[in-house]
């Protein structure tokens, strides 16, 4: 699968509080409304600027903090097709895959805001068309690839009736 879009760059330690702030706790059962505030405390205009298929690009330890799955969910609902970071916090990473949002670990120093990227999930290459460079990334563990290919954990279990990750 190939993904095309524009990069939106963020720094290190983007917490789930920055992605889905606690002051919007009451919107967690209205995810489309919550998505209007996605990443608001890191970039107040992000939700109005991001385009369909675009990429969120972070630094180290992206998604640290709470287990709130609402964080990757509203990133996806905002139209983002993939999250890239130098490293991810464990729960965020697992949640992203579970809801069918690809999460890629790569050297994001080579990506700036506004860069046009083409990501090939199968062969593990990110083409930065703006900078005319290719970035490589390691494939997901097999278990996570299976879940992501099925479109997330709910779809995976619906399809197989059980975990089918081996």
């Amino acid at each position, binding site marked *: 699968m190939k993904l095309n879009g524009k990069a939106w760059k963020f720094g290190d330690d983007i917490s789930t*509080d920055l992605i889905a702030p*606690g002051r919007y706790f009451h919107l967690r059962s209205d995810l489309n409304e919550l998505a209007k505030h996605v990443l608001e405390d890191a970039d107040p205009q992000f939700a109005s600027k991001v385009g369909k298929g675009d990429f969120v690009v972070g630094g180290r330890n992206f998604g*640290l903090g709470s287990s709130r799955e609402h964080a990757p969910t509203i990133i996806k609902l905002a139209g983002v097709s993939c999250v890239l970071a130098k490293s991810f916090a464990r729960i965020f990473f697992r949640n992203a895959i579970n809801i069918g949002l690809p999460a890629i670990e790569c050297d994001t120093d080579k990506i700036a805001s506004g860069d046009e990227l083409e990501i090939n999930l199968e062969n593990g290459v990110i083409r930065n068309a703006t900078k005319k460079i290719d970035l490589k990334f390691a494939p997901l563990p*097999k278990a996570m690839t299976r879940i992501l290919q099925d479109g997330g954990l709910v779809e995976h279990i619906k399809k197989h009736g059980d975990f089918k990750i081996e």
Partner: protein
Amino acid sequence: MGKTISEKILSEHSGKDVKADDFVIAKVDLCLLQDGTGPLAVRQLEELGIKRVVNPQGVAVFLDHAAPSPRKELSNDHITLRNFARKTGSYIFEIGEGVCHQIMSELFTSPGDVLVGADSHTCTGGALGAFATGMGSTDVAVAMGLGKTWFRVPRTIKVVVNGKFKSGVYAKDFMLYLIGSLGAEGATYKALEFTGEAMTSLPMSERLVISNMAVEAGAKTGIFASDKITKTYLKQHGREEKYREMKSDKDAKFEKEIDIEVDKLAPMVSLPHTVDNAKPVDKIGKIKVHQVFIGSCTNGRIEDLRLVADLWKGRKRDPDTRVIVTPASKDIYLMAAKEGLLEAFIEFGAAVTTPGCGACVGVHGGILGDGENCLSTSNRNFLGRMGNPKSFIYLASPATAAASAIKGEITDPREYV
């Protein structure tokens, strides 16, 4: 080759002989939902077409993050969770009963269990020798519906802590120090195992602080071997028969070992806006405190409240510093009432609030104003955590928080204890 505690528990629960880095499907003993993540888990189960949970006796639902509910949307989420618990026969803990991790530890978590919770601080259960870890709503929904989940068996970092805690220095200070030195992702995907004389002599209330904060170094879980202190704790909560020995084999393979001499530790403070930004309290200069929050799953236990009440005896809060005390559970609240601690808090000038997460999560019960500083005994100081991205959160032990409430600025508790 011997096994670590995590490898032992996950071998038992997968029916296979597994080691670090293996992928396993493991039986789950306990599932935890709270009111911030539970409604989504319930909707995901519905989406899956699953109408029952495999083991209702192992599912606990907590109304603790918004307790009592400050908004109609959250009141409706509470209805969703009450209905779910009723339909599935799961346990529900009403508003006022306390923070999920405190109650799980008191009533459910036992050595050797696998506990998954839709709350990142589920790792608290590691203090009891369980494999306890936080996950998202969908993972916990599937764990409830199928009775199992998948794991990558974590590698374990052995943290050997020797020496004796100095007066005024607590498990919280140790943990802030450790997170500061490991960094916020220093233990990502790993299990931390705590051992050494300074850990094996710690009471359960302090072990719970350490396991609770393991996730702040990125860890999957923070685990202690079970011992006579675990046994006594289970007995105090009427669950002595749940005791079993869980410890790593002598020849278990650890990824690395970290040695710490606890004698050298000073009281620590984590400065805004990351937990790993930890510094000794006597090295941070003068910092005004507008609000002190004593509570949370990290430090809202009876031992914490006793220490605070003792330190406040015959004193008053600084007139420019407001103080909130939130006991972590109903039982703690009751004990505090019986022991006269509540009286001490009120006379000191503190507001005592309903057991639950309280001000920690920024939903209600102590949201900060623009430019204000809060000294909190909780576990996170991320920007916006307490409801206002224009405020500043400092983390410390209950003793440091109590001393700071007297002076109105961040204060070394060794002046008082």
